[in-house]
């Protein structure tokens, strides 16, 4: 490399050539592993460029709708859905449900524009009426996972969303051995260098495949390989929170729910997950089931 460096008329005195050599000997430094994920998470907080502005409803009405929707969402998370009204308890016998303290206005601040979009979306409606999806979203593991910017950034990538919607990929990700293998340092380094085939051929991955032969088909699928090429997905795989979410039956079951997958493919949903108000509410200890 140095040989061609100095053939283009470099003005350099022999006296200071050692300085150049010293500089070149330093090599470049690896950026923080989560840099891409951090940037994409920040960008995910932005309102859509295409839909920016042009609201037809009055601002006050929007705030009202958003606030009501926020209270509904949190209520679902706390008490389950549908809410049990007075006088109905007797008909379902002696079942007891943990009742967390009600969250007050100060607990959830509905200030983010993306929340307004989310609460008005079809994805939100389906999410709140689909039991499987609701259980996944309100599960402790999912909340912990989406509190991680790397995971939210991964969920915002279309290739990752497409991969998660694939049954073959879901089967592969349900193998904890495979997920651990993908998170290993050797595989991550291969993925970062965009050498997907080398990553999949690694000893760790092949050992996971041998333990669960059905995984092989998923690894060969275009959807999975496209997702693996995404640096955001690579970072998410290395996230302990994401691994925990993948190991959660509720999360994996939710991937089979049309409502959940539709929510994942909704930028409004992912943007809502990026909202500190939602993630704080989701991750709040007071919501623990």
């Amino acid at each position, binding site marked *: *490399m140095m040989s061609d460096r100095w053939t*283009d*008329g*470099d*003005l*350099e*005195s022999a*006296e*200071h050539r*050692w*300085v*150049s050599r*010293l*500089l*070149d000997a*330093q*090599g*470049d*430094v*690896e*950026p*923080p592993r989560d*840099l*891409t994920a*951090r*940037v*994409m998470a*920040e*960008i*995910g907080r*932005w309102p*859509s*460029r*295409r*839909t920016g502005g042009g609201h037809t409803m009055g601002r006050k009405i929007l705030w009202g709708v958003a606030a009501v929707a926020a209270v509904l969402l949190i209520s679902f998370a706390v008490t389950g859905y549908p809410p049990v009204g007075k006088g109905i308890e007797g008909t379902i016998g002696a079942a007891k449900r943990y009742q967390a303290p009600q969250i007050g206005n100060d607990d959830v601040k509905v200030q983010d524009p993306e929340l307004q979009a989310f609460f008005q979306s079809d994805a939100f409606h389906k999410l709140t009426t689909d039991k499987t999806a609701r259980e996944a979203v309100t599960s402790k593991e999912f909340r912990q996972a989406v509190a991680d910017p790397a995971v939210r950034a991964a969920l*915002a*990538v*279309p*290739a990752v969303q497409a991969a998660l919607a694939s049954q073959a990929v879901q089967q592969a990700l349900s193998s904890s051995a495979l997920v651990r293998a993908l998170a290993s340092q050797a595989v991550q380094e291969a993925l970062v260098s965009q050498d997907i085939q080398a990553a999949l051929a690694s000893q760790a991955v092949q050992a996971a495949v041998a333990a669960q032969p059905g995984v092989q088909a998923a690894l060969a699928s275009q959807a999975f390989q496209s997702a693996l090429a*995404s*640096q*955001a997905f690579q970072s998410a795989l290395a996230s302990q929170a994401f691994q925990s979410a993948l190991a959660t039956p509720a999360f994996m079951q939710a991937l089979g729910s049309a409502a959940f997958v539709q929510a994942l493919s909704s*930028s409004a949903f992912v943007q809502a997950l990026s909202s500190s108000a939602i993630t704080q509410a989701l991750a709040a200890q007071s919501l623990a089931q």
Partner: protein
Amino acid sequence: MRASVYLYEDEDDAALVARCLAGDPAAFEPLVVRYQRPLFNVALRMLGRYEDAGDATQTAFVKAYARLSSFDPTQRFFSWIYRILKNECLNMLRSARPMEPLPAHLVAAGGPTDRLDDAERRDALRRGLMALSVEYREVIALRHFADLSYDEIAATLGIPAKTVKSRLFSARQRLGEILSDWKVR
């Protein structure tokens, strides 16, 4: 082996920017992946601290995304985002805390500096770079840590290639003097 930042097709960059502007924020990710390494390494040499360089690079990308509509697709994306990064670095330098003093054996005349280990040599070089003016530091960073040619540096900085050569010559000379004073050779 460092990858040249101009290895990629500029048309591809422009197409990705167009997709972002059309409402596809995920199209920004390949741009981040493509340019984070050279930008981070330049920021690291400009700022001297790993964490600061990471923050500056992240902020530069986010600001670039916010201003994508002002990007001229006939220009190179790297040149455009580099200017955003440089401004961010300058802002951080204005409010930066002072660097820690040199270890005593590096400043003591006649000290055992001929036996510097690699870590000490790297640290001395980092401090030497930080002792240069921003103009000198950036040409060294673009040349040696982003692996740009003279013409590419000229396009990035908006100055003639001839000026790049002479500035780089002076910068290396000054750095050599500083390091010689510290007996790093």
